[in-house]
């Protein structure tokens, strides 16, 4: 390792950092060590596991895209436009982040459940309701993941500054054109980071989903839910499934990081 001209990292920083690594990695490492490989492969072969994994990955991806389509404009509004109540709106938008997931599920239910304020008229009118459907899972994921997307993107937009917007305006660009051709391209790293965060939060989402959507293989049984019910009957199987989920998450996050968050860094 070549010498850093600024000197060695101070111990006062290194020690807590190492502790952080320990706290974060030790449980994962031990979990990996406690699983047996044949058991893992067996689990992967079962249809329930594959179904749950596919459901988790697909709903998380769709939810991330929905959160982007809805969240990017909101983030722009919060970052670029002055209006009364802006701080309040920003605070409210981040509430799902701090809500315990089960509470989030209950909130979703009172609004969109089969006997919910919006859900009941919807059911009566169209025969469709969100609970017990994959759409419901996506809705729950969007609810918990969107705040992450909004906050990340708003941060990126703020730090980019308004000078480029001003330059684009003098060149004749409308706000929409500026948004499309200047603001968004420049904020892309922040947007990508927000999307990754949103996707990761979605993947791990459990409490809101199971409260709002229930659990049924193929439609609403995501990986976390499968792990939860499996644990009641077979802890080893649950452990193997947990490891599968861990590997998928780490794999995707690692791959994404290199490609997306590498923009602008060495």
């Amino acid at each position, binding site marked *: 390792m070549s010498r850093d001209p600024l000197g060695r990292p101070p111990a006062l920083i290194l020690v807590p950092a190492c502790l952080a690594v320990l706290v974060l990695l030790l449980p994962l490492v031990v979990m990996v060590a406690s699983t047996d490989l044949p058991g893992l492969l067996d689990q992967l072969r079962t249809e329930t596991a594959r179904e749950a994994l596919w459901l988790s990955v697909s709903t998380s991806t769709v939810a991330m895209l929905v959160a982007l389509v809805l969240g990017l404009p909101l983030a722009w509004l919060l970052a670029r436009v002055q209006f009364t109540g802006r701080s309040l709106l920003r605070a409210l938008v981040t509430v799902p982040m701090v809500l315990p997931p089960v509470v989030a599920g209950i909130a979703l239910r009172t609004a969109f459940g089969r006997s919910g304020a919006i859900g009941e008229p919807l059911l009566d009118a169209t025969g469709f309701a969100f609970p017990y459907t994959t759409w419901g899972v996506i809705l729950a994921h969007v609810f918990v993941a969107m705040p992450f997307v909004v906050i990340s993107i708003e941060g990126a937009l703020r730090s980019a500054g308004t000078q480029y917007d001003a330059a684009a305006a003098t060149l004749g660009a409308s706000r929409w054109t500026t948004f499309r051709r200047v603001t968004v391209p420049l904020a892309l790293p922040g947007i990508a980071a927000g999307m990754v965060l949103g996707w990761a939060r979605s993947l791990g989402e459990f409490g809101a989903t199971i409260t709002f959507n229930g659990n049924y293989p193929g439609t609403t049984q995501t990986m976390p839910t499968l792990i939860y019910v499996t644990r009641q*009957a077979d802890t080893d199987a649950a452990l193997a499934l947990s490891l599968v989920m861990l590997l998928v998450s780490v794999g995707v996050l690692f791959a994404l990081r290199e490609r997306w968050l590498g923009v602008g860094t060495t």
Partner: protein
Amino acid sequence: MEKHLIAAATLVLLLPLAACGDDDGDGSRGGELTVLAASSLTDVFEELGDRFEADHDVEVNFSFGSSTDLAEQVADGAPGDVLATADETSMRVAVDDADLNGDVETFATNVLVIVTPPDNPAGIESLADLANATWVRCADEVPCGRVALGVLLDNAITAEPASLEEDVRSTLDKVVSGEADAGLVYATDAVAAGDDVATIEIPGAESQLTSYFVTSLEQSEDSELAQAWVDLVLSDEGRQVLTDAGFGPP
């Protein structure tokens, strides 16, 4: 004057000691009893706990949860005096991996019923009606789910539920909140829910009885007290409380 001050100061310093009275469990005045029990026993055991506390002048602490979780904890050596589970498998896990004080006793049974919202919007009258409704039951991996599966098989019902809930309280909750037209829960849950649900009995559900087991634990620090609890549960008084809550005889 100085003497009074010293006396007062000493008194003040000694006050905290008075508060450290009763957190050792040696069975005499001011002891503690820890009971690990399946969630479905919550209301009944809390009722019995009040009575036990009055009779024995001890504090009864409960840890309610899934039988599987509790059995695992006991097998791992978690502290506790009594274990009560809602199925045999869990009790075997606890029994096999730890020696017991006293025998394992079965003290109650529970039977599956159908519950609907009070106004029964889907007009459910029997299991057969489930086919046209949005209904829920416990997941196969949990005891109440296994019972439900048995009952459904016995009655040749092939209808699929909208959701397989992780425990019976969630199942009940879906019905109470109006998110499901019907749910399969224990008779005791239906009783506990009172006016929030309408109950429909299932003919022949007795063939899929859930039995409840109780035992005092090896790791108990006061085996006499633990046994006293078991005795209360098995007594006439205990029997009455259980029946009022909707449990069947052992």
